[in-house]
């Protein structure tokens, strides 16, 4: 629903600049210890540059401010992508009024309390989240889902939830409000996409601690270098003062430059942008994560509970074969089956018509004088009566007794066929006919669940990622096993009740596994709440949405797999940029240490492996590289490191090579190139 847009669209960067500048406020920046140190450094160099102006000091000062600004820019760009979406959501939340049930009093929607009953009629906006207690209506939910086709909402059952801000298109419903004021689904969505109440996730907190520790170490390393440097200068009295090193030690500007280059600014700058972008990637797939923690947990999931219907198989059973009885030709059976199903508008019935057409070239016919016998729970079969002929299809026992009633003798063979199909996980439908006085069984239709295309490969992928897939179904174990085998899931839970699901989740968690599942019904709520990642379908009840920690607006259960991948991608991006950031430091040392000390200890010039032009150009180049790399990596932080499902060892090898080794090499090249430019500036070489 939000256009992904260019990742490093210069206009986007430019439009985020004011926001980035606002974030320089130390009161907000201190939350990010690494960038806070950079800002303090920038302030200090500004003061030093004013006291002792030089082109070099001002150049460093400018780039230190830019470093801090670039870090904020990353965050601002990430947030900006959610802003547009928030604006369209706000439009949906325009001031609505609510008409109370019975009293018909009109009050402001913001004053609604949980438990209030409101009436909504065609053309009105639903004033708040709740469940329909009376009536049925078609509702336009495009404000939230971006899907323009209206959906049906009705009281009772699993489609009773309505969302505030959506519009009733027809009929009249009575809604019981379930939200507290200001905590509606739309409110939460707005806060979420804007990143307003973004809490740091557990892994982000841990990473922040590590970054703070590294910052502290480098702070100690640079500060304690000062007395060592003073000593070094004193024992070499013949060496003239340089811009970097005088009898008072290393100049403040240079010392601060070294510190800023060493502390992990790259990951420090991009860390929160990575988190926001991760949520954003979910939003782009129409999934709302109600907590950042859940996104991270998705990466850790080791067990996926997948509902069979709709996730693993296409919604309904389909005709897969016509098995004729002895003495009946397949075409004969197909024709009878099709004829009996022409008026049957259940998905199974339609699939029989289609299968007969595609497999036997039988076109649909218009027949006159036909009398349709609809399916009832008593007869357990349906069919058609045409002049001289009656055809019935349905449950094996029902059709066979119907045949017997009319004098036919279904043989042992039919029973064997029926049992065979059942055993293979299919559903047998027996077709019988009565012509004149005789009746007989024509054969059996094999209905089976059709596994969605590509699922087998998907599950194999999951296995390589170390994730176990468990199919949940209400089918009997025999049928369940057949489908599980066909789909290639690792395990299945047959004849599953909500309690069974909850028990299964608890058992998995007991073993230390993290469990993800989808659900929509109210009876799924306990399991959704128990699961580490519970994705509620937007079509589901508000109880389910309340219990889960993610909502899929498209109500597509297969998306669980994508959610797991997004979670992994988030963690990988963090790890890759951390590794890159630390690996960068090596080159910066090789630039700055000889720049400061080669004057007193000429041998140290051997460390200047990049052959940088002058001490000033070396330091400036390192500082510039340090700032620019942030901007260059913003797209990667927002897009995330490319993730291809594979084993941990393979993933690690690839990323280690790219971001570890790349992180060591890139700055050597980058600093050298920048040096080639800055050495021509006045006062630098």
């Amino acid at each position, binding site marked *: 629903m939000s256009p992904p847009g260019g990742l490093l669209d210069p206009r986007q960067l430019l439009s985020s600049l004011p926001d980035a500048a606002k974030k320089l406020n130390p009161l907000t920046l201190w939350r990010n210890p690494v960038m806070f140190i950079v800002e303090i450094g920038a302030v200090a160099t500004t003061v030093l540059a004013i006291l002792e102006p030089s082109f070099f000091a001002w150049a460093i000062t400018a780039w230190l401010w830019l470093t801090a600004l670039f870090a904020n820019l990353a965050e601002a760009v990430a947030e900006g992508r959610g802003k547009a979406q928030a604006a369209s959501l706000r439009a949906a939340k325009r001031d609505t009024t609510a008409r109370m049930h019975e009293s018909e009093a009109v009050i402001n929607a913001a004053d609604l309390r949980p438990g209030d009953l409101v009436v909504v009629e065609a053309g009105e906006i639903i004033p708040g989240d709740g469940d329909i207690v009376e009536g049925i209506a078609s509702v336009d939910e495009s404000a939230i889902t971006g899907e323009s086709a209206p959906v049906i909402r009705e009281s009772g059952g699993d489609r009773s939830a309505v969302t505030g801000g959506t519009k009733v298109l027809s009929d009249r419903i009575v809604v019981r409000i379930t939200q507290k004021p200001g905590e509606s689904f739309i409110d939460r969505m707005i806060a979420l996409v804007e990143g307003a109440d973004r809490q740091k996730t557990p*892994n982000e907190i841990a990473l922040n601690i590590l970054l703070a520790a590294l910052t502290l170490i480098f702070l100690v390393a640079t500060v304690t*270098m000062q007395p060592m440097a003073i000593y070094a200068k004193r024992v070499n009295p013949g060496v003239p003062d340089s811009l970097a090193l005088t009898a008072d030690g290393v100049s403040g500007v240079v010392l601060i430059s070294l510190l800023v280059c060493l502390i992990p600014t790259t990951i420090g700058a991009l860390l929160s942008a990575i988190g926001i972008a991760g949520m954003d990637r979910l939003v782009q797939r129409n999934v709302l994560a109600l907590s950042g923690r859940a996104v991270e947990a998705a*990466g*850790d999931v080791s067990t996926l509970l997948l509902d069979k219907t709709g996730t693993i198989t296409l919604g309904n059973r389909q005709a897969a074969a016509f098995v004729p009885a002895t003495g009946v030709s397949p075409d004969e059976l197909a024709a009878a089956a099709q004829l009996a199903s022409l008026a049957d508008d259940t998905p199974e019935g339609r699939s029989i018509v289609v299968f007969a057409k595609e497999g036997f070239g039988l076109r649909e016919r218009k027949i006159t004088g036909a009398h349709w016998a609809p399916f009832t729970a008593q007869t357990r079969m349906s069919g058609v009566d045409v002049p001289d002929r009656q055809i019935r299809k349905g449950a094996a026992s029902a059709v066979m007794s119907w045949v017997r009633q009319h004098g036919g003798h279904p043989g042992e063979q039919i029973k064997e066929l029926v049992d065979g199909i059942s055993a293979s996980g299919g559903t047998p439908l027996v077709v019988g006919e009565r012509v004149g006085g005789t009746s007989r069984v024509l054969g059996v239709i094999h209905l089976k669940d059709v596994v969605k295309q590509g699922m087998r490969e998907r599950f194999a992928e999951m296995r390589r990622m170390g994730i176990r897939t468990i199919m949940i179904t209400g089918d009997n174990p025999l049928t369940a096993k057949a489908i599980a085998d066909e789909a290639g899931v690792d395990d299945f839970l047959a004849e599953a009740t909500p309690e069974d699901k909850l028990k299964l989740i608890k058992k998995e968690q007991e073993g230390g*596994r993290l469990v993800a599942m989808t659900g929509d019904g109210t009876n799924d709520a306990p399991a959704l709440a128990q699961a580490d990642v519970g994705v509620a379908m937007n079509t589901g009840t508000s109880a389910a949405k309340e219990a889960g920690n993610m909502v899929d607006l498209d109500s597509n259960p297969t998306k669980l797999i994508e959610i797991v991948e997004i979670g992994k991608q988030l963690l990988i991006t963090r790890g890759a940029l951390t590794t890159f950031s*630390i690996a960068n430091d090596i080159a910066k040392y090789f630039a700055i240490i000889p720049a400061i000390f080669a004057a007193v200890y000429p041998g140290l010039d051997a460390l200047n492996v990049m052959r940088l032009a002058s001490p000033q150009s070396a330091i400036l180049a390192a500082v510039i590289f340090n700032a620019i790399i942030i901007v260059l990596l913003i797209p990667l932080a927002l897009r995330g490191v490319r993730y291809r499902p594979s084993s*941990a060892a393979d993933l690690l090898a690839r990323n280690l090579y790219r971001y570890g080794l790349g992180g060591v090499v890139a700055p050597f090249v980058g600093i050298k190139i920048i040096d080639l430019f800055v050495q021509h500036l006045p006062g630098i070489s």
Partner: protein
Amino acid sequence: MLVLASLVVALVLVHRPLGDYMYRVYTGPPGRERALYRLLGVRPDTEQPWPVYARAVLAFALVSVLVVYGLQRLQNWLILSLGFDAVPAPVAWNTAISFVTNTNWQSYAGENTMGHLVQMSALAVQNFVSAAVGMAVAVALVRGFTRRGSDTVGNFWADLIRGTVRILLPIAFVGALILAAAGVVQNFTAPHEVATIAGGTQHLTGGPIAGQEAIKELGTNGGGFYNTNSAHPFENPGPGTNWFEIFLLLLIPFSFPRTFGRMVGQPRQGHAIVAVMATLALLSVILTNVFELSGDATVPHAVGAAMEGKEVRFGVSDSATFAAATTLTSTGATNSAHDSFTPLGGMMTLLNMMLGEVAPGGTGSGLYGMLILAILTVFIAGLMVGRTPEYLGKRISAREIKLASLYFLVTPVLVLTGTGLAMANRSGLAAMHNTGPHGFSEILYAFTSAANNNGSAFAGITADTPWYEVALGLCMAFGRFLPIIFVLALAGSLAAQKPVPASAGTLPTHRPQFVGMVVGITVILVALTFLPALALGPLAEGIH
């Protein structure tokens, strides 16, 4: 190189049975030490939560410091004093801390300061128990990995006694016999007075040396009976004893990962840890040898190798290997003057300690230090597999990374702050005998050695001034016990967790890939932390 190769072979052969034996000692039922438990009222089955375990470690350390300090200060009143006076307060404090922390930094000359009683009942006892404390803490950390949902990490008193009685004592006993047989002095006599060729007289102080020598190396202590330590012919008569001493000091640190692997039920995890240690150690030993043999300095150039400060009976290579081994473990025994090494050779000994004494490090402390590095590696690089990092099934989340970071912070902060203060302070500078980068290296070495509990010295500074006694004493104490507290807290938080079962999505921590990663992260973190200091010391001196 023959020495190196034979050491590798010997350790490969021995680490398995010894590691397995230590595994049985720490996890099996009580053996001979049962009587000692009864005597001391220790109930080995009483499990302690980590704070209790940590308090026990600290209480034991405090009592130990008081006893060692007291015995030194009261020496002149006690028997076997050999007529020496009471040890001055600053020296006594420094020595007490030094031996209790397994550092064994010696700001005094043993043969002229300590009588037999202090040497044996204070210093030698600490040689055993301070090593056993390190092993106990390491075992507690490993229990953190093995336990699920538990709030205890073991019983310190039982671990201390088992380690001392069933591991250190028997091996040290055999070691002492071998050393004595090979010519190391072991007697109880008063000093001999001998006439020298030049016509003067010389005191020859003998003593129970072989016994102390064995545990000095085995417990990675390093405190010599004599000032010149293992360079003294009574402590280390020849190449044979030299080889054996190196072997002894590497023995337990290289065998402990096997114990770890057995305890976590996956010996291959132990192999990975030992591989990290061995890779770092081999690199270091070879580089030290290269720098010393190529002798990159004026005089060494003239004579072909850096022989200055080395015993002729050992030669350059044996001295370089001993120096690398003693600094790679937290032993700190020396058979040559590290101060006289070539600048880059000397830098290797510094770097070895700066690694945090993990390759293979001290008894126990090497293992827990290396496990902390493994945890940091898992966290930094492990994120790249797209899961919350976990090591041996335990999640590395905020609390674990906080403790691991704190552990990692302690020694660099102590070393750099100490060195910085010394360079900025009149008392610090006044003690220097050399100026320039070499003088600076000597100070850096002193603080690196103290904070990492190594105990070897570059010398070249007057270390028995009150300022250094106190500063280095504080470095030793904080450098030992702060990390121990963090390790035990980590053990507690790991033990409380339920393990996550391994799957294809789990970062494998037993493959060469992981070994390379730990080596890389260790080297990079250490290099980044200490490069400025090294640049102003050995690098400034050594690169021309």
